[in-house]
């Protein structure tokens, strides 16, 4: 019966062949695209808030960053003869994260240069998605910090007054620039910090909600935490990496961060700088982080410790970017040290 049907069809239409492949024949509904676009969606609330804090040009810088990352990805893949995969959202996510870690007052040329470095050199020359051993967005930031140190450490903006999101347009950035809380703390001491930003519960809450100078995306700890919580709920990330990073930063800052031992302010250390953004969205990047639970915790503790070391003793006020970049290439090493526990070793065998 079937053969007849096929031969009749052959005369008119091409035969539709049955598929054959190795099992399993069904797959879960999760995909790389779904993961990437979900993370992008989780970063939208902090971006929108950032527009209301630093003005509309943050949106412009972010758009430039995203578009250039996607464009560089497409051109790189074409040039290297690979399948163009810009729809998978990974370049969009890199662009977004790159914009999140640069100051809101920089020239829009900077994210374009960073996109070329991060996506072409940092990702596609190393083999494309999965083979880059540095987080592309942080690599872009490190490149900018080394190439444009003045802009990257001074183009901070004070939060705008009551919805004046267009107030920075057309003004010279030099005229309005300010300093980030961590920079004030590092360069001028705690007294100057209290004078500039206040103290007590009001300080924590305004920092937590985002009303402070900082990079485009590191403003609101609350919205970033909500995004991170959603990723945890979807099981796209686990608590191991963010938990160990934030726990280590809090602990070490409490012990070593104050005038005396055990005199530091752990809560302030978490709500300032990029700690929450880094812990939930940068350090958890699948490609550049370890995969077994133990190595994830070790990785997180090392990032936290390096962050505090750079903040307290290093030359920069914020250290999580370099801490993550330093640990990125070690994640495969950690994975080879802490292997998953096998079901059962062979009987009387060598293992």
């Amino acid at each position, binding site marked *: 019966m079937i053969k007849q049907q096929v031969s009749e069809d052959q005369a008119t239409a091409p035969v539709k062949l*049955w598929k054959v492949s190795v099992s399993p024949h*069904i*797959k879960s509904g999760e*995909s790389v695209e779904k993961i990437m676009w979900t993370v992008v969606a989780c970063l939208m609330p902090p971006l929108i808030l950032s527009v209301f804090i630093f003005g509309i040009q943050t949106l412009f810088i972010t758009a430039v960053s995203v578009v250039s990352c996607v464009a560089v990805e497409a051109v790189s893949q074409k040039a290297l003869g690979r399948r163009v995969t810009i729809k998978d959202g990974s370049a969009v996510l890199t662009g977004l994260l790159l914009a999140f870690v640069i100051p809101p007052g920089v020239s829009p040329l900077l994210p374009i240069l960073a996109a070329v470095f991060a996506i072409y050199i940092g990702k596609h020359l190393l083999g494309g998605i999965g083979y880059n051993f540095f987080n592309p967005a942080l690599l872009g930031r490190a490149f900018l910090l080394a190439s444009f140190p003045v802009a990257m450490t001074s183009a901070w903006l004070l939060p705008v007054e009551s919805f004046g999101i267009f107030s920075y347009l057309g003004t010279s950035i030099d005229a309005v620039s300010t300093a980030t809380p961590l920079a004030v703390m590092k360069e001028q001491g705690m007294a100057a910090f209290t004078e500039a930003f206040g103290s007590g519960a009001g300080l924590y809450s305004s920092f937590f909600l985002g009303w402070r100078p900082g990079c485009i995306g590191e403003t609101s700890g609350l919205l970033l935490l909500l995004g991170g919580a959603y990723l945890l709920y979807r099981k796209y990330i686990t608590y191991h990496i963010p938990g160990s990073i934030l726990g280590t930063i809090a602990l070490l800052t409490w012990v070593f961060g104050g005038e005396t031992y055990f005199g530091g302010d752990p809560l302030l250390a978490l709500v300032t700088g990029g700690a929450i953004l880094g812990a939930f969205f940068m350090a958890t990047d699948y490609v550049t982080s370890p995969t077994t639970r133990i190595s994830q915790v070790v990785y997180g503790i090392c990032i936290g410790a390096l962050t505090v070391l750079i903040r307290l003793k290093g030359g920069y006020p914020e250290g999580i970017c370099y801490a993550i970049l330093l640990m990125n290439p070690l994640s495969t090493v950690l994975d080879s040290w802490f292997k998953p526990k096998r079901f059962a070793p062979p009987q009387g*065998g060598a293992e």
Partner: protein
Amino acid sequence: MPVCRRSTPIEVQNIESMLTFPKGGTHPPELKEQTAGLSIEVMPVPDELELILGQHIGAPCTPTVARKEEIAEGALIGEVKRGLGVPLHSPVAGKIKAIGTSAHPMRVTAPSLTIGVDHEAAPVQYMEQDWQSSDGSELLQKVNDAGIIGVGGAGFPTHVKLSPPAGSPVDILLLNGAECEPYITSDHRQMLEHAAEIVGGAGIILKILGIKECYIGIESNKPDAIKMMTAAAGKASSGDCSIKIETLQVKYPQGSEKQLIQAITGRKVPAMALPSSVGVVVQNVSTAKAIYDGVVYGKPLYEKVVTIAGKGISKPANLLLKVGTRIKDIVDYLGGLEPGLSKIIMGGPMMGFAVSSLDIPITKTTSAILFLSEDEIDTSPHSQCIRCGWCLEACPMGLEPKEIGIYVEANRAEDTEPFGVFDCFECGSCAYVCPAKRPLVQFVRLAKMKAKRP
């Protein structure tokens, strides 16, 4: 892809108290509602059967009949003279038409016997025999003579499994009624319709092994089967043997031998070792039914309950088929194929084999034939590994599928032994969860060909 759903509410126990294996596993959609409610239906015998001579693991049978020879139903038509194997019996009365080769889902072609069916011959009536007076070794011989192999899919000769090596004393028998593959309901129907025979088969195995303890593991998505089996087990249990039903959590691959043993007994079978090394023998519930038929009635294994499901077949069913029935005869009986058909699978969607021809006959180990449409299968292209580590979480054996895949792609398949490639039983959990849709089972099979066994 629909989310995981239960076809029936759990009324037996709450989920925490149910047994399962602790590490790895996935929850593919169960999709059993299409056939779970359909009673086993006897399909009329087609005009021709084609019996593959190598139905079991081991050496294939050599034919004991010649071309054009007339044979009776249940007659011996093939046997293994040397090496591991079981005899083969004719499912029908008829005439040997050809001794040649048939299409085969795994081996492309395989030696086979073609039998022209004599529709006039009266079916054989098997009578209950006196088996209670036989001792263990006589019962074991009956199991061998009936051509019984593990019908759950492995096809390992049952009499060998029931004679554990002298150095490993066995104290527990497990019957596997987990049926964790999506779509398949043939074991479920067997448990509903033949509970007493399955429990009777368990009693015979206990006698062969000379032990007293039997547990039957059934996933909680089959509450009606749990009820029937519990009732049957209660009747059969006595002072000198105890048969208990254990409710298992719905989790794939619950029906894998090592995972089932760990779930029910807590014992871990070492790598490269047999279950008997931890004192356990596992048999499928349908194998227990075959043992009952073989020992009590002297009926050889030549019929099989097969689930036919998927959107690509006009009428889904649970069919009782003669071994050797070709897929095309089943399709004709069930009213033909649907236009959207995209893939035909022998076995379940997680571990089954895709076939390219309807001429392939079913064997003693076929438990399902699925006719899946485009929207029931995954056809998305795979991309590079993003090292998310989901495969490590899903692997029930604690292996590193991502590394195996990356090494195979880099032409270093021979270096994959340290990642546990030989512990892999190809359940497909890793490939199921992989967001990059990587064909990890295919990578593992390639790696197994090139890597050296430790």
